[in-house]
């Protein structure tokens, strides 16, 4: 058994990342030939105790996707960290918190209350909520606890590399495997994608004029989008200028603006603040009233600018005003 061991794991995520391994298509065969997959919940049955039984650092690399929200996910993250030589945050959720991270706009209590009591579709007169421990017929099953905030993987355990994307593209995954297997690894902590914004590889780049002054914003569904032209002069928010490249500009290729899943470049501390700065500075209006009229069509700045990055933003999550 000299083949390196590889694990895939899945925390708070949609599962799409695990599927991407299949997106490697025939290359998957090459990978499988060279490695042993020891953990892959979406495809293989595997027990916690089996994993625990492995010696520490026995797994060469673990590709963990999903954000960390529950105590169980935390435990798995810690366990996998211990068993792995390289822990790779795989995909936007593990990298930045991802879509689940948007929950950080709300208090945990509010989330529980809404989902178990107040949502229109809920019938729960007893106001029952999931408990971490219950007693039933003499047994005491445990349920994971929901943590106060959604975290990116590196906010829970040390991470060696990041593979960005929602989900990461096969090319990047393939390159990561190649690097891992060949040992030609970049410095620890690197994001395994180019450190330059998406526009660099966007086919629409050349169509952007040098004098954009926004007078109106549209959401993608509000307008018939020109398939060739840069989205920004069309008044559609595109996160491309504030987002790492490496995806091959797939969304613009499908006539949708970039939503920022690769996260910011290394030179940026807060992706949302940066795109906000750039878009607003380029508004045409001068009067407060007119400025706000134009900006009105960005109805949800948090959801727009921090779609993937709220959990790793400078403000990280909603502050609790009730205690302030």
């Amino acid at each position, binding site marked *: 058994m000299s083949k390196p061991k590889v694990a895939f794991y899945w925390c708070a995520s949609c599962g799409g990342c695990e599927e991407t391994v299949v997106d490697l298509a025939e290359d998957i065969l090459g990978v499988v030939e060279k490695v042993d997959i020891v953990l892959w919940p979406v495809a293989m049955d595997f027990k916690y105790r089996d994993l625990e039984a492995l010696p520490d650092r026995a797994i060469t690399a673990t590709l963990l996707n999903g954000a960390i929200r529950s105590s169980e996910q935390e435990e798995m993250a810690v366990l996998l960290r211990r068993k792995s030589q390289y822990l790779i945050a795989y995909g936007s959720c593990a990298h930045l918190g991802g879509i689940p991270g948007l929950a950080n706009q709300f208090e945990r209590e509010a989330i529980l209350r809404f989902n178990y009591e107040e949502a229109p579709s809920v019938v729960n007169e007893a106001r029952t909520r999931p408990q971490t421990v219950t007693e039933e017929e003499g047994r005491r099953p445990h349920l994971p606890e929901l943590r106060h905030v959604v975290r990116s993987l590196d906010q829970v355990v040390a991470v060696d590399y990041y593979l960005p994307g929602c989900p990461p593209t096969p090319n990047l995954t393939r390159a990561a495997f190649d690097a891992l297997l060949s040992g030609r690894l970049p410095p620890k902590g690197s994001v395994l994608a180019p450190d330059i*914004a998406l*526009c660099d590889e966007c086919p629409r780049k050349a169509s952007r004029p*040098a004098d*954009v002054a926004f007078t109106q914003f549209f959401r993608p569904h509000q307008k018939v989008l020109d398939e060739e032209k840069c989205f920004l002069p069309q008044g559609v928010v595109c996160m*491309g200028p504030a987002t790492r490249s490496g995806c091959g500009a797939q969304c613009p290729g499908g006539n949708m603006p970039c939503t920022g899943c690769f996260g910011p470049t290394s030179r940026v501390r807060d992706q949302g603040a940066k795109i906000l*700065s750039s878009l607003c500075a*380029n508004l045409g209006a001068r009067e407060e009233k007119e400025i706000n009229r134009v900006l009105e069509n960005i109805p949800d700045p948090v959801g727009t600018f921090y779609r993937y990055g709220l959990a790793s933003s400078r403000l990280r999550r909603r502050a609790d005003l009730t205690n302030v």
Partner: protein
Amino acid sequence: MVSSSQEVRIGFYVCHCGHNIASMVDCPEVARYVETLPGVVLSRDYKYMCSDPGQELVQQDIREFALNRVVVASCSPLLHEHTFRKATAAGGLNPFFFHMVNIREHDSWVHTDRAEATAKAKALARAAIRRVAHHRPLEVKQVPIHPDVLVVGGGIAGIHAALTLANAGRKVTLVEREPTIGGHMAKFDKTFPTLDCAACILTPKMSEVGAHENITLWTCSDVVKMDGYVGNYTVTVRRRPRYIDEELCTGCQECISNCVYKEPKFVDEFNEGLGKRKPIYIPFPQSTPQVVLIDPEVCLNFKRGVLTDRCKKTCVEACGDRKAITFTQREEIRELQVGTIIVATGFQTFDVKRAPQYGYGSFPNVYTALEAERLVNASGPTGGEVILRDGTQPKAIGIIHCVGSRDKKTNRWCSRVCCMYSMKLAHLLKEHSGAEIYNFYIDIRAPGKSYEEFYDKLNEEGVHFIRGRVGEVTDWAMTPEEEGKLIIRVEDTLAGFVRRIPVNMVVLSAGLEPQADAQEVRRLFNMSCGTEGFFLERHPKLAPVNTFTDGIFIAGCCQGPRDIPDTVAQAGAAAAEALVLIDRGHVEQEPNTAYILPDCSGCKSCLPLCPYTAITFDATTHRAVINEALCKGCGTCVGSCPSGSIGQNLFEDEEVFSEIEGVLSE
């Protein structure tokens, strides 16, 4: 990108500034605290850091302790950053390894709790210590200075500045909005306190301007645009038509006597509307240039500014072969290259109608001070006789001080010259009419050389001084002696009771205020205005003729009310400041320019943000490029770059973040 591989060795100095800082900030304690911070090799407190020994201390320490960063906590960097950069350089370091902390203007002078002020000083110092670690060596650029000068405004300030520069051999362009130079001073009869005739001292200087080989005089002209930076300004001037070819007109004025209007009929601006002039006229006999002009609003040959054929053109006939009259003259736009600019645009007098309680406009015998100037002037509309609008001669005259001055509802400031000019007018009016003169004042402000003596002289002459701000000027009489007169109701505050004083003439000593277009002029030349609207000097004491824009200087009443001696002195100072720049031949530019990092994605977001078009898109590399010569260092593109791919010397992201961290990590 900004860190230096070398080990950081910081020297920190906290200045007592005598008691200015030390009385509110525990300087030794700050020094002790900073010594504990990472990277700090030595930390000292010292009485006067800006003194020579203070600066030498820095130089010695750099050499002795192999310092490679210097932080001084003292006054505002706007005051002494330059000083300490020089000291750092003299110690053998790049001057930009220095950073300054403002614990005087922003701390000791504005706070009252010693513990809080000391804590603040520590926080600011901590931020600087963190920041300075990121500093890098930078080069200062030198830009040559164009030796020509523009002077804007041809009053006594502009005239004096232009002559000073021209006599020093510099080429000067003097731009004046009116058809003649001379400004307000040309309207005065006498000047206080010496009572020498304004024309006698001004007109020789005016003619000298007109004749000087180094001065180009453009009247009827406005500056409409200014571009560039210190040493290299491009100025656009609009020259309005006067319908006379200045080169051909000899100033014989035969055209005026031959105008179809036999009698002067139109409001004479120079005489404050007290006299009349013709459509073709010269503002006053000593006008410079000695060239007539045509008022197209009233000239029969123009109907509402459009050329018609309604006149026999007798003026043209009179001009004959000289052919100086050109009805078809058009507005011209000219461009100038200059290195420095002196703005001397003067003031306007307060519109006394804004103080309706004094009845100007309702009662014909209420005059403004400038009208009174013309009335006592031998070359004025009445030949110097004090004859009122109703044809009578006054037996009693009230002069009301502070009209539109020291009044929060109009202008808050003291106009500084009114006390003196009111007394001058009191003297002249008494001399010319023999009337009883009452001065109504709040306080007499006579702080100049020989001014108090002038006040004494007026008292000796029997001019009445009543301390009290007049409540109203009215025409309703209560006693027979008041019938048909203007009655001034005032508290004689020194006597402690209210008085009613009937007079035949009231003179309103209007205050001085900024020109109506001061705000536009300010924007034009990139200057600031104080709250009252006068142009703001860079420092009230140490840089009174400098503005916040290098190479632009101010002189005269555009900076604030002042009298003629002060104006002339200030104009000389402004000329000297311009000469300093010109003679040095170059200016040094702060190296705070922005630059594009290699990881630019070419998204073009920054291109429209630069007001100086310093950022362009390189079509071959598909990246943005910043032209360092055009960049002025505002950093707007840096703050807006969505991928963090623009840096700015002296204000790098890391430097600012480290400051934020520094001020907040307690």
